[in-house]
């Protein structure tokens, strides 16, 4: 038993940290978040160069073929930097869905292009119903003329406006259970009947979109993998994305804690640094406890996804429930301990606070995941 990282993973961490310190200072984050892309082509190319756009794809498709524990290392650094842009949406959602569900031809067509930075993907699966399970897939795709027609709308889709290809989950039949009957489709950019609008969101570093489908015609070849069998691969993509998000949240929380501890050492009030007061000190200690526990659960979930898949669903939900609360609490406490300046636009805490709020609810909030934990443990 060894709950630590390998030398290669520590090297990845060092490389990533130095990369983001150089290429993604918060000045860059603020500039990018004011734009629809939240990204520059040059930065995207650098991510590709590092091999990170293909981090989870098999080497035969130009990826690095790494596992979740490696991803967790990278994501902590991305979270620490509040890296903007469609990395998560393209690499860990859209591209990952193609990797998980696609035919060899589909994977061969898309994965190398995503990994090389030439194409971006996105995943449209959530709808206005606020569900994070198969029951939330209510949009339909009916068979017509040898192909399919998609009708309905998707909401809260990360970075759909930047995608060259959208992976869309829709119900192709009423199955014996809610998981049965979901299919995944590849919808190329510019497909007729698809309209994408970017929503103004709390976290502008990663845009969320509404995507409407008005009787969108797709050929048979647009089907990703097997008809009606799309939920299982989608669920696997989502579980891995959740753990990646948890790791990103831990990295952000650590940065908030670092900033807060630094401030508490230098900010003087009533003749002493505020960190010497127990009220401040104890709040900071609680931030550390929350963060370290969130890390522990994230690491365990990452390992389970790689090595103990039967333990993974419970581990994933435990991590997301805990991290959702932890990042919110840490970011909030960080602002509290900074006093007034913590709430300004100018101070960087706002970037983390907003990322925490967005991440808290993505893929299911703490209450959603606690329910899943209760059902799994109590079964």
């Amino acid at each position, binding site marked *: 038993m060894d709950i*630590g990282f390998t030398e290669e993973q520590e090297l990845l961490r060092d490389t990533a940290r130095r990369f983001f310190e150089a290429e993604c200072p918060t000045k860059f984050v603020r500039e990018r978040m004011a734009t629809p892309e939240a990204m520059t082509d040059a930065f995207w190319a650098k991510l590709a160069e590092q091999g990170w756009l293909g981090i989870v794809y098999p080497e035969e498709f130009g990826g690095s073929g790494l596992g979740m524990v490696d991803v967790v290392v990278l994501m902590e650094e991305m979270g620490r930097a509040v890296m903007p842009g469609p990395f998560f949406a393209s690499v860990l959602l859209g591209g990952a869905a193609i990797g998980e569900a696609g035919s060899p031809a589909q994977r061969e067509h898309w994965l190398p292009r995503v990994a090389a930075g030439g194409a971006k993907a996105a995943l449209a699966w959530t709808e206005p119903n606020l569900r994070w399970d198969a029951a939330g897939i209510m949009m339909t795709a009916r068979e017509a003329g040898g192909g399919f027609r998609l009708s309905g709308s998707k909401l809260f889709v990360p970075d759909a406006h930047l995608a060259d290809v959208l992976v869309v989950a829709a119900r192709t039949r009423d199955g014996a259970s809610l998981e049965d009957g979901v299919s995944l489709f590849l919808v190329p950019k510019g497909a007729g009947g698809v309209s994408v609008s970017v929503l103004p969101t709390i976290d502008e570093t990663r845009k969320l979109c509404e995507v409407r489908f008005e009787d969108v015609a797709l050929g048979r070849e647009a089907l990703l993998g097997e008809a009606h069998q799309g939920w299982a691969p989608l669920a696997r993509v989502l579980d891995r994305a959740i753990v990646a998000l948890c790791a990103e949240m831990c990295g952000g929380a650590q940065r908030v804690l670092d900033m807060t501890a630094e401030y508490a050492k230098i900010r003087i009030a009533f003749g002493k640094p505020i960190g010497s007061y127990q009220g401040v000190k104890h709040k900071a200690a609680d931030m550390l406890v929350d963060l370290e526990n969130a890390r522990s659960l994230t690491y365990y979930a990452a390992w389970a996804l790689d090595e103990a898949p039967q333990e993974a669903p419970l581990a994933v939900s435990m991590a997301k429930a805990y991290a959702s609360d932890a990042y919110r609490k840490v970011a909030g406490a960080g602002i509290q301990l900074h006093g007034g300046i913590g709430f300004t636009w100018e101070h960087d805490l706002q970037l983390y606070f907003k990322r925490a709020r967005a991440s808290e609810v993505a893929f299911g909030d703490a209450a959603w995941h606690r329910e899943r934990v209760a059902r799994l443990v*109590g079964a």
Partner: protein
Amino acid sequence: MDFADSLEEAAFRAEFRRWLEQNLPPEICVDDAQDQRVAPDRETLEQRIAWQRRMNAAGWVGIAWPKEYGGRGAGPMQQAIYNEEYARARAPILPAASGLNLLGPTLIHWGTDAQKAQHLPRILNADELWCQGFSEPGAGGDLAGLRTRAVDAGEHFIVNGQKVWTSGAHFADWCFLLVRTDPEAPKHHGISYLLVDMKTPGVEVRPLVLLNGHRHFNEVFFTDVAVPKENLVGPLNQGWKVAITTLMFERSGAGGRDHALQIARLFELAKQLPSRQEPAWNDSHIRQQLAQLAIDAKALQVTRLRSLTRRLRGEPPGPEGSILKLFGSELAVRISDFAATLLGPYATIEAETEAVPDAARWFHRVLGARQYTIAGGTSEIQRNIIGERVLGLPKG
């Protein structure tokens, strides 16, 4: 990263588990080892002493001690596996626990050969039971403020003073005692560490009864107690350093391991007990609370393993160690608070009932959980330590 046992670890685990299955008498098993760590009467004490001697004869006591002192030189991972299996078997905490976990390692580090030869084998075989004479009425969290005085009287020290919260003193044969030998020196620099035979004239033990009726603790009064000079551990007036060794061992063992079992039982009870018209399990609020307890227990378990990994890799201790005692004890309070809401009046009676056969155990958990956020360094002190030593914040 690997959460699974290695082949050696798995073999060790299986070996100890099998030995326990074959040798642990069911009548001495307990549900809450920590809460039931001090034998409630002499008969139980004798049973546990016999048990420790059986374990010792088979080489299962003090496994982390070096071989030359009767241990196996087992590493931290084996010790962790040993602790897990021991807890899983519901075995009672050994009567010589203070000696095994606190004094023994301290003597191994600081003791003279004569002290080691006299005491270590007896600790292993429960021939000597020890109590810890550290806290005083005026020196709890601020231990270095202690005032029990030891005066040099030639061949002996003469000790006068009072200790409090002395667990097991009523059964103990010996006491490891912190005394002030130089009242003129700054408080951390005038302390010495003595070994005191509890049968020495002038030692008086008075029971301290807790609000749950437990009689674990005592006040111990020292009136002109003569302690031979060869019972000094470490250099004169440098006993604080020796005490730090003891405290480090105490801290590393803390945090509790019963949580997962208790939480599992609460899941069961939620399905059986009513909340309004239906099983409590049907109430989503109940499920949310149960889930959070399960999540917290898992987080604690993994954080403990991360801390262990650092030790195994020889890395300097990270923040995980400080967190364990704080989070573990506060989780125990949350478990007991939830149990109180779930069980309602069942948790207020110390009796077996048809609906809740283990109501008496829950009675004690609900009543007792608040001890552990205080004992062994209060939560407030733990937060100070995290803030100061881990985050580098200035002292108040």
